[in-house]
């Protein structure tokens, strides 16, 4: 019986470690976002493309993990109001100006040359919005700057 208990604990700790990585990636977004903002007004070199891809791929992976893991969703819902900090939106979410600047450079001679994650950024954000409750959304947009940012990105409506 004790063995079973130890095993279950082992299993749960494995699961929490997994979330730890995901939440770690979420925190890491702010650093990646500022890098993207730095390169957004530069030429679209391969190196800059990689910087841009890293940020948007991280968003994609986070949305994918969250959307496909119901346990992670309920874990997040349970702790949302305890741990959610309004500044995440400012630090982690790329604003419309920098995004538009990147998108303008992504089409060359009629060919789209950036990652697909860049093209579908707004859609990915809209998709993750559907996984939060109304109450959680209202908490997210409590901050005026965050609300404005999400409005500009067409993630939320007035």
């Amino acid at each position, binding site marked *: 019986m004790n063995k079973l208990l130890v095993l279950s604990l082992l*299993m749960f700790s*494995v699961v929490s470690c997994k979330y730890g990585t995901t939440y770690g990636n979420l925190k890491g977004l702010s650093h990646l976002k500022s890098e993207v903002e730095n390169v957004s007004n530069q030429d679209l070199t*391969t190196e800059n493309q990689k910087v841009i*891809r890293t940020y948007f791929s991280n968003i994609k992976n986070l949305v994918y993990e969250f959307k496909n893991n119901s346990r992670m969703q309920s874990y997040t819902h349970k702790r949302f109001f305890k741990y959610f900090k309004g500044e995440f939106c400012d630090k982690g979410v790329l604003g419309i100006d920098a995004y538009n600047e990147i998108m303008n450079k992504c089409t060359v001679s009629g060919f789209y*040359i950036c990652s697909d994650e860049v093209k579908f950024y707004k859609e*990915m954000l*809209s998709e993750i919005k559907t996984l939060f409750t109304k109450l959680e959304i209202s908490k997210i947009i409590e901050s005026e700057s965050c609300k404005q940012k999400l409005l500009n990105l067409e993630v939320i409506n007035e």
Partner: protein
Amino acid sequence: MKSISYLFTVFFTLNLFASTEVISLNDVASKVKESNFTVLENAQRVYQAKETITFSKRNLLPRLNFWNILKLPFDWASGIDIVQDVAPFLVPNNWFRVSQNKLFYLAQKEQYRALWANEVMTSKLLFLNALRDIDFYNALKVQKGRVQELVDIVETRSVMGDVPPQVVKFLKIRQLEIEEDLRSMDALIFEEKKAISMLMGIEQEKNIEFLPVALPEVEDLSQISFDTFIFRALDNAPEINQYNYIKSSLRYIRKEAYFTFLGSSTTARSSAGGVFNSIPLQDGLGFGMSSTLRIAASEGKILDINIKATKEVIKKNLYNLVYSFNSFIENIDNQNKRLQLADDNYNIIKTQLVLGVSVDPLEMLTSIENLFDASISLVNYKYEVVNTMEKLKRSIFNGDYTKKEGKLDDILKGVN
């Protein structure tokens, strides 16, 4: 009686139209996506891979195995065996298989994306080749008319003794050669139509006709650079993504090796089967574990080699595409001039002939053939540009080849 025969004719004509399908280049892409046999088969494989995830998840729930329960009154020690039945979630390797199958599903989706894009490209290129051959066929018909005109003139002059009879015979031989070229061209177009029907999933009984495409004004196109496209070509390549997903799943093999002492998983790895089945796993903790880990590491190296090789193939193809596209643009003036000169030459000789100047019929034939070659070459040139652009679009997944990568596709399912 007359009205009956009229009705019959109308019915017959309608029937003829009903069995002929007119296809445009856009139709090719959409038809291949929904009815190509290989694409449809592969879509089923993706579906199976997805179902395998559900299966491996459900395999974590208790199940009833009557024979194992029956064994219990006779052999209490066998109670430990039914852990796999009553609490399979306590076997870590079952969990690892779930994670692995999720990655194999994404790999399968990437394989599907590559196959899908290749089928679309093959069909579109075949469609363009068929259109080019139809243009050649029509040009050949014009050529036939021109040679016929020359034969008529030369025959008249031969009667008057201006031209030796062997020249007439020579021209008639050339005329017959053109007839033969027309016949083989017609057979080739027929074959191409049947091949396109096959790729588009259209029944072979149906006739298909092609709508022509607008050929590009090559003079208006500008040069492209390798650096512009290479990022997207590598970033979006399903062939590389597929290897990356398979490589990510390798870490679960290592975990499986560590946890074999808690039982092996009975869930299969991927619906396609066989992925990493060559890596030996001991049933229980033993001295073979280190070998398992080394073999797994070696598998990882093989995947790295494959990724590197695939990247180099993509780069090689892109270099070639960009180079040929730019060389087409550079040389378009040459092609236009060639046609212009050949056309001028033909008109000068034809005018001389009309004015009664003694023109060598063989010189006339050469000018007709020069004109034919130049016009064919220009048409071919323009189709080559369209083909190159098509291949470029395939390599960076633009236009008809736009298909989202596996994870992104899952996230945005139903959004677009």
